[in-house]
């Protein structure tokens, strides 16, 4: 009986795939049509994961599998100015590319004066660009990941960011994704490609939000290539509606001496899953993977990370935190692979979860696979409640027990938020947490350099 249900899910997607036909991306890049065919075929073989699948053990996606989603179009008239306004980050003045259900909307975007050669905009429009031909669908592997397979099969558009050799983009780029398909259970599969050529530098925020009242699926894949010596400072902010499902894969490829950092910040969605994977494939790379999620109700947030140390003398830093209220559930799975060649690797992974209710639950699983013998790898995980000694310290200075608790929850979150280098984003998130904790917002944390 289970088999029957699964095959029905698969048929539904195969049907949507046939209806879609050739996409704008295919027409600019003939090979992609074949890749999309292969992806839908692969999805047909593997279907949706179940909790018997090790990578999905604690994340049951059957609510997604059971829903008949329809491909959502890019009609930007459905994006109200109010939706857009709440999705924006006040004070961010750099280039902003807006996407409706994964489709670029030039009418709502403001790309301003980009440095010479820099491209920010539609992936479909750039289908024949050499960097797209060279990198698109070459990094995110769909063989063993149903959602990456679906994204690949359905890829039509998304963001393309290209920073040529040696160019420094001063202003942070905001890739703003809005999901809206009123009255329909819509799905979108935004596909993003970020290519930072050697010695370039760029800051990018991907943000996702959507309607609060609708059931919808956002299934995004972002491929990032950081060339020799490139510095990519990446953020992903997920504020989807609470009935929605958000599945994301960020697949990063790092070349020699590149520095890639990402912070994944999640608040919304009924079920959210982030896979962040980086391959440090050159000497002297630095990879930083941070994340925080704050959830409540019956939300589930799953963060899977994979750091692949392929070459010597690289370092990786990883700090993931979760704050869970009510009956919410969190999953953290952090895999670090140190290949035989990757001597002198320095890697640190930390996962901390704060449970604010007796019914909240976290599953944390560090996985270190070390094949080299001269490496320094540490990992640690803590799950618990607010430290009573910390509460007492604050109370002993006159702060009430209730305020002390709120302040410490804020502090727990702010430990990640304060690391955000895009100032308006940092301020926005800090305010959000302060407000959630009912702490007066008359102050801004000023961390010294």
């Amino acid at each position: 009986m289970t088999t029957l249900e699964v095959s029905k899910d698969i048929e539904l997607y195969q049907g949507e795939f046939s209806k879609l036909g050739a996409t704008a991306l295919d027409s600019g890049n003939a090979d992609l049509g074949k890749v999309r065919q292969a992806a839908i075929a692969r999805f047909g073989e593997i279907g949706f994961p179940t909790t018997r699948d090790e990578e999905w053990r604690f994340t049951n996606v059957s609510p997604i599998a059971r829903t008949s989603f329809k491909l959502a179009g890019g009609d930007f008239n459905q994006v109200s100015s109010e939706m857009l306004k709440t999705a924006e980050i006040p004070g961010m003045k750099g280039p902003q590319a807006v996407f409706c259900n994964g489709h670029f909307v030039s009418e709502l975007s403001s790309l301003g004066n980009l440095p010479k050669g820099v491209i920010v905009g539609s992936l479909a429009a750039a289908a024949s660009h050499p960097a797209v031909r060279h990198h698109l669908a070459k990094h995110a592997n769909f063989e063993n990941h149903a959602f990456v397979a679906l994204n690949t099969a359905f890829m039509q558009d998304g963001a393309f960011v290209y920073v040529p050799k040696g160019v420094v983009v001063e202003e942070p780029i905001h890739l703003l994704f809005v999901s809206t398909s009123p009255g329909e259970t819509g799905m979108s599969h935004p596909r993003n490609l970020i290519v930072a050529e050697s010695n370039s530098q760029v800051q990018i925020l991907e943000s996702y939000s959507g309607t609060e009242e609708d059931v919808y699926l956002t299934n995004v894949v972002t491929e990032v290539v950081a060339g020799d010596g490139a510095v990519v400072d990446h953020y992903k902010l997920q504020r989807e509606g609470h009935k929605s499902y958000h599945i994301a894969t960020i697949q990063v490829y790092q070349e020699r001496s590149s520095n890639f950092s990402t912070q994944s910040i999640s608040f919304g969605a009924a079920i959210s899953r982030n896979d962040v994977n980086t391959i440090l494939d050159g000497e002297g790379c630095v990879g930083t993977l941070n994340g925080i999620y704050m959830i409540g109700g019956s939300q589930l947030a799953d963060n899977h990370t994979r750091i692949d140390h392929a070459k010597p003398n690289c370092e990786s830093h990883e700090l993931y935190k979760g704050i869970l209220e009510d009956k919410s559930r969190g999953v953290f799975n952090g895999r670090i692979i140190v290949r035989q060649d990757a001597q002198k690797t320095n890697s640190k992974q930390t996962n901390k979860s704060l449970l604010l209710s007796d019914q909240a639950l976290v599953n944390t699983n560090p996985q270190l696979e070390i094949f080299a013998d001269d490496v320094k790898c540490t990992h640690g995980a803590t799950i618990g409640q607010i430290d009573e000694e910390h509460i007492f310290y604050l109370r002993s200075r006159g702060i009430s027990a209730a305020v002390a608790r709120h302040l410490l929850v804020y502090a727990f979150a702010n430990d990640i938020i304060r690391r955000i280098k895009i100032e308006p984003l940092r301020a926005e998130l800090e305010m959000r947490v302060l407000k959630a904790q009912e702490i007066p917002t008359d102050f801004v944390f000023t961390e010294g350099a």
Partner: protein
Amino acid sequence: MALIDIKNLHASVNGNEILHGIDLKVNAGEVHAIMGPNGSGKSTLAGVISGRDAYEVTEGSITFNGKDLLDMEPEERACEGVFLAFQYPVEIPGVSNTYFLKAALNAVRKHRGEEELDAMDFLRLVREKVKLLGMDESLMNRSVNEGFSGGEKKRNEIFQMAVLDPKLAVLDETDSGLDIDALKIVANGVNALRGADRGIIVVTHYQRLLNYIVPDFVHVLANGRIVKSGGKELALELEEKGYSWIEEPVGAR
């Protein structure tokens, strides 16, 4: 009226009685040192005064400024003017010293019926007190105690005391782990805060700190009782002879 009046105080941890009847009066303007060997109950006494809930008071009373101190929550005690300088100050990544202290000061001021300080007045006050302790002002923008050295943490405790302006300060082994330079800085800070309106209880294992914070009275605590009280000379005597001559008669009771 004494600032704090401790009468026949018995306190236990997990059902084990640690304090077996302490009597101690401290008047405003006085500095009392409480000395004693490890396990004598020094930190328990400091904890009971500040309201740590690990300790259960089974008998006796503490009257602070005419009010029943044991009836108050830790934050009420702080607002009434009790300050504990921690032996092990905690690190709180994510909350800046400035914000923490402003929240604390305004809670205390509100309790006293004073107006809350705005950001400008607060900064003025902080700058003044920072100088008093010879602290690096940049520490104010860092997270509470995060990455501070042992000396910086202890200095930060005294700095908080300077800002909160308590009526009674209890310094719990503030000297532990400090080198002589750090010790002098901390002691100078405390001395600057001595005054006719304030009582100070210095809890310490060693006499060394009392070379710099010279007490008016010294009490020796052993096995949960005050076994000897005297003037500052008593500290020197303890330094010379150790604690054993004091502990013996108690063991023999």
